[in-house]
C-alpha cells in the first residue's frame, strides 16, 4: 500500500477513448447522451457524473510538428480525470462525511452515504464532481478504489494502449514526469510541460499531466483554489453581521422602551 497517482502524458495519447470505455465498463457508469458538440471529435465535452475519464481533442492553428502536418488544424489529445487534490474542495465541503481520503491518497465518494446535497459540485475548482439527475447523488472518478484495494491498476490505466495513462507511486511518477519532459525537450518538443499545481491552493494533486502548450487550452486552471480558503473571511463577516444585528436590535428596543416609559410618566 502506497500513495499513488496518475500521470497522463498527452504526447502519447492517440485519442482512442479506451480509457473512457474501460472506466464505464468497470464502474458501471451510464451513457452520457448522444449529443453532437461540433467541437472536434469530442462529443462529451467535460467530466461529469457519467464521465469519469474524458479524452479532450485539442485542435489549434497548425503548428509545425504539433499533431501532424494537416493544413486545417493541429491535434493533441489528453485524457482528463478527477485530480484527487491534496486539499480537496469537495471533501472539505461534504456535510455528510461521505467524501473521504483513501489510504492510496485518492478522494472517494461513498455512494451509500451521499445524500445528494450538491455542495461538493460548487466546491470543486476543476468542475469534476456532478450530481446525477436521475440518481440524485454526486459522482466522480473513484480512483478505482476497489481495484487498488485488490492490488490492481485502475481500469483506465490498464486499458490505455500507449501507456499515456501511467499509474504508480506518486514520487516515482513525479520523477518520471520530469525525466519525460526533459527527454521531450531534448528531442525538440519545446512546449512540453508538466501540469502539477503543487504551489496552488489545492496543494498538489494525485493526477498530473504532461501537455504541449498552454495548459489553459486543456481547460486546466492555472491557479485552482480550495474554497475552504475563503472561510475565514466569510465567517468573520458572519460574526460581524450577527454582532451588529444583536447590538442594533438591543439598542432599538432599549431606546424605544425608555422613550415609551418616559412618555407614559409624562402623561401621568
Amino acid at each position, binding site marked *: 500500500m502506497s500513495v499513488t497517482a496518475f500521470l497522463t502524458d498527452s504526447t502519447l495519447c492517440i485519442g482512442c477513448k479506451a480509457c473512457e470505455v474501460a472506466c464505464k465498463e468497470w464502474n458501471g457508469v451510464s451513457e452520457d447522451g448522444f449529443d453532437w458538440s461540433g467541437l*472536434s471529435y469530442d462529443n462529451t465535452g467535460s467530466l461529469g457524473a457519467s464521465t469519469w475519464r474524458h479524452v479532450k481533442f485539442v485542435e489549434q492553428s497548425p503548428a509545425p510538428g504539433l499533431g501532424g502536418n494537416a493544413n486545417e*488544424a493541429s491535434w493533441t489529445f489528453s485524457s482528463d480525470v478527477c485530480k484527487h487534490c491534496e486539499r480537496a474542495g469537495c471533501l472539505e*465541503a461534504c456535510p455528510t462525511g461521505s467524501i473521504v481520503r483513501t489510504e492510496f491518497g485518492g478522494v472517494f465518494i461513498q455512494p451509500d452515504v451521499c445524500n445528494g446535497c450538491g455542495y461538493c459540485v460548487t466546491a*470543486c475548482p476543476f468542475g469534476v464532481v456532478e450530481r446525477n439527475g436521475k440518481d*440524485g447523488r454526486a459522482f466522480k472518478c473513484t480512483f478505482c478504489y476497489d481495484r487498488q484495494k485488490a492490488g490492481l491498476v485502475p481500469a483506465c490505466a490498464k486499458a490505455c494502449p500507449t501507456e499515456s495513462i501511467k499509474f504508480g507511486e506518486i514520487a516515482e511518477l513525479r520523477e518520471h514526469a520530469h525525466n519525460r519532459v526533459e527527454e521531450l525537450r531534448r528531442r525538440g518538443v519545446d512546449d512540453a510541460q508538466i501540469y502539477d499545481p503543487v504551489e496552488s491552493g489545492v496543494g498538489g494533486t494525485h493526477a498530473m499531466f504532461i501537455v504541449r502548450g498552454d495548459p489553459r487550452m486543456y*481547460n486546466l*486552471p492555472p491557479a485552482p483554489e480550495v474554497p475552504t480558503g475563503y472561510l475565514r473571511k466569510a465567517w468573520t463577516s458572519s460574526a460581524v453581521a450577527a454582532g*451588529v444585528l444583536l447590538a*442594533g436590535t438591543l439598542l432599538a428596543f432599549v431606546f424605544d422602551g425608555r422613550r415609551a416609559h418616559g412618555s407614559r410618566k409624562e402623561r401621568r
Partner: protein
Amino acid sequence: MNKSGPTRGTNLECEREQRLDQIRQQAEEQGKLRVVSGGPVEAPFPQASAENGYYQLPLLKQPPWTWEIPLYFFVGGAAGAAAVIGAIADYTGAERALVRDARWIAAAGSVISPALLVSDLGRPERFLAMLRVFKPQSPMSVGVWTLLGFSTGSAASAFAGYLRDRYGTSLPLRVLESAGQAASLAFGLPFSNYTGVLIGATAIPVWNRSAASLPLHFGASGLGAAVGLLELLGHRKNRALQALGLGAAIFETLEGVYLESRSDGHLDPIKHGPSGWMARTGGVLAGPIPVLLRTASLFGGQRRSQSLRRLAGWSSIVGSLATRIAWVQAGRASARDWRLPLQQAGG
C-alpha cells in the same frame, strides 16, 4: 439459409439507420446540432487556445440547486432575524403581541426551512446522513446543525408561549419557553446570515469574490424581510421596528453602491444580464425605496405613516427574495463563464 441471411442483414442495417436518424433528431431537438451547422462547410475549425480555453466550454460545474435553495435563503434569513427580534423584544419588555408574532414567524421558518432543504436533496430520504458528523470546515454542515438548533428552539418557544397564553402559566412551560427562546436567539444570529458563508466559500467566482460581504448583505436582507413581515402583521407603530427597518434598508443601499462601484470582472454576473437585473431590482426594493418610504412615514399623520410602512414592508420582503434569487442565478452564470477560472491568480 442463403435466403434468410441477407434479409437479416438488411434488417439490421435498417435498424442502425433508424437509430442514427433518431440520434440526429434528438440532437436537433436539443439544439446541439446547430453548433455543427452554425458555420458553412468550409468554415474554420473551432480552436482551443490559452484565451478561449477548451473551445470556450465551461470549466466549472453549475450549482445543481433548484428553486428551493434561494427560497430557503430568504425564509432562513427572515426567520433568523425574527427570532432575534422576538427574543430581544421579550427581554426588554416590549409588548407581548410583538414577541408572539416574531416567534410565530421564526417557528414558521423553522418548519419551512428544513422542508425546503430536504426537498432539494438528490436523496431526500437520506437527510439524516447530514447528522452523522459535525464538520466545522463545511459551512453546509455547520448550517444544518444551526438550523437544527434554531428549529427546535423557535418551535419550542412559540408552542410553549401559545400554551401559556391559552391555558395559563406553569413552571415547565416557562422553562421550555425561555430555554427555547434563548436557543432561538443563539442559533438565530448565525442562522440569519450563514447562507452568505455557504455560497461565499465555493469555487464559483462571483460568490467567492464576495465572501467577505455576502454574510453582511444577507444578514441585512433577512432583517429587512423580518421587519417587513412584522409590519404586515400589524406592528406598524413600533418605533424599534422602524429603526431596524431603516438600518437594514440603509445598509442594503450602501451594499448596492459598493457592488456597483467594484470593478472586478468576476462580479459581472451580479451586475449584467438577467441575474444582474434581478440583483438590481432586489437591491432597489430592499434599499433606497424602503429608506424613502420610512423617512416619509416619520412625518405626517398616523394613517399615512402606517400605510407607508406597509409599503416599505412589502418592498423589503420582495427585495430580499429577489436578492437571494439573483445571487443564485449569478452563481450559475458565473460557473458558465469559461474565462474566469482560466485567469492567472489575482487576475
